[in-house]
């Protein structure tokens, strides 16, 4: 009897299959677009994070690129994402703090945008306050000191535009726009912003030879008693040049910005900020979460002589009583030369990353 019921059920399933074959679907299927993963990434680190509900597509990336450079998302149509994240500065800007549409000054330095699909913990912003690239993209549009819009108004503008409804249909199969789809498209574009063609990358691939100064600088970077940079900023086997984790690197004795501490509420996290990548430093000045250092010399001097003690300072900051590890002038020059070898000019001029 049980078997007979099974047979009937199966028969029903088959007949329903026949019916669905007759139905016609008009849903648009966007064209899948695999991320071009550089060999040094594929060989050495885990695959990029791509959410299952937001696969990369040709149409999605194109839409995200248009949105990224479009001032339509801001409250008065004067600013786009690219206003503070422009390609020539590795998708950062050259200001200590960026100015929003109302003239308000931000409180933190604009972060560069590259290789973000490899931020495995998916904590974004200097203080890690959002999880996932999609969630991150939702925030600047409605931040009152940034693009100062509301999503209701931004979406209405997009919906009334002559091009966007069709572009959303091409990318997501619907002409009904919402903030989630905007964020998904921008995140897809951001995941294509891959930087992997610096002098140091070419050195690792055997294409060029680094200078003696650059190689000396790399040794200082990797030496625990010298630079000791590698514990937080990667190494030759980690092309990200960041651990994407949060550290207090000895900037202040008293914090004016609690960083991660604001988010977790744990005093042990006060003064901690996410390690930025050391790629593209040539283009991303000023440096630190508050853009306090204008030059790489100032950054190196900070770690060498300028460390300040505080309750949450990272144990990897050494000789704090003396201000740091006391690098010699020639060591500083070499370290700077190595750091600059991580910059990737082609990334800043890549035609696929410019305004459409």
């Amino acid at each position, binding site marked *: 009897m049980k*078997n007979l019921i*099974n*047979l009937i059920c*199966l*028969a029903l399933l*088959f007949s329903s299959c026949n019916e669905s074959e007759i139905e016609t679907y008009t849903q648009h299927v966007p064209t899948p677009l695999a991320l071009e993963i550089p060999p040094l990434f594929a*060989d*050495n*680190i*885990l695959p990029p994070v791509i959410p299952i509900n937001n696969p990369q597509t040709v149409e999605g990336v194109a839409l995200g690129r248009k949105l990224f450079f479009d001032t339509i998302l801001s409250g008065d149509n004067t600013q786009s994402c690219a206003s503070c994240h422009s390609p020539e500065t590795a998708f950062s800007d050259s200001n200590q703090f960026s100015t929003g549409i109302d003239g308000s000054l931000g409180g933190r330095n604009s972060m560069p945008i590259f290789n973000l699909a*490899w931020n*495995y*913990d998916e*904590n974004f912003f200097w203080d890690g306050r959002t999880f996932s690239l999609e969630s991150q993209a939702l925030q600047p549009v409605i931040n009152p000191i940034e693009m100062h819009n509301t999503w209701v108004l931004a979406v209405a503008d997009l919906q009334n535009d002559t091009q966007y409804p069709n572009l959303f249909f091409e990318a997501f199969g619907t002409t009904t726009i919402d903030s989630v789809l905007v964020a998904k498209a921008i995140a897809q574009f951001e995941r294509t912003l891959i930087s992997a063609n610096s002098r140091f990358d070419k050195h690792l691939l055997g294409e060029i030879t680094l200078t003696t100064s650059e190689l000396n600088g790399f*040794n200082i970077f*990797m*030496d*625990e*008693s010298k630079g000791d940079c*590698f*514990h*937080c*900023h*990667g*190494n*030759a*086997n*980690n092309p990200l040049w960041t*651990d994407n984790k949060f550290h207090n690197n000895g900037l202040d004795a008293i914090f004016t910005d609690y960083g991660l501490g604001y988010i977790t509420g744990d005093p*042990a996290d006060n003064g901690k900020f996410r390690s930025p990548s050391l790629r593209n430093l040539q283009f991303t000045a000023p440096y630190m979460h508050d853009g306090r250092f204008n030059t790489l010399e100032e950054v190196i001097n900070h770690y060498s002589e300028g460390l300040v003690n505080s309750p*949450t*300072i*990272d*144990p*990897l*900051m*050494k000789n*704090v009583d003396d201000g740091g590890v006391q690098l010699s002038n020639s060591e500083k020059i070499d370290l700077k030369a190595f750091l600059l070898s991580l910059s990737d000019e082609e990334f800043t001029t890549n035609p696929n990353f410019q305004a459409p």
Partner: protein
Amino acid sequence: MKSLKLIVAFTLLFLLTGCEENEENTITHGSLTINFSHYWDAEKITSADFNATTYTNESNNILTISQLRYLISNITLHKPDGSSIELLDHYLVNLEGLSSNTSITISGTAIDTYSSLSFTFGFNETDNVENYIDLNSASWNWPEMLGGGYHFMQFEGKYGATGTENPFAYHMGTARVSTGVFESNHFDVSLEGFSTNENTTIEIKMNLEQWFENPNTWDLNTYNTNLMSDYNAQKMMQQNGASVFSLGEIN
């Protein structure tokens, strides 16, 4: 076309009946969960204790912990007849709150009585020259100038009186004898055996106090940072590591 459907239907039916028969078979494999737990002697340590709870070692250094990560490899179950099953190639234990890694479940473990469980702390010489993308992604590499490969442990914190603390970074890996001359620094751990069932959970305990006292009494005033290139410090870590692990609860 219709006959094809019938064949498919009957094949499925046959499979369904087959399933019913299988249910009567004896279950031979189960899941084994390994929980890594951490103690200061008998006092349990979690990431909630980081930067907060103070501990005193045999040298009377008062310390707090801010990070604990360590690598174990070749995690293997041994049977009384001498045969063995490798459960895991390697595992990076991380006590940190948000991205903690202190428990792993291995399914398909043969239900049996095992005479011991063994693993290597760190990597042996052969394994330490391989390229591991998961460990590279965690920036777990050990500098080439110190022999390369990977860290075995990063145990960090601060010691000294409140307000005047100094950092310690008890980092372990390959030992550098002299420029270009290196000595492997892993050690093997063997814990007692146990029996498994369909769902077994075992606890591997690390007593952090042992890193500072047995057999070498460790004074943080002498050995605190820059330990990676310090041959004596590396060998003392290896020796002290021998007594840090034990088998805890089995359920």
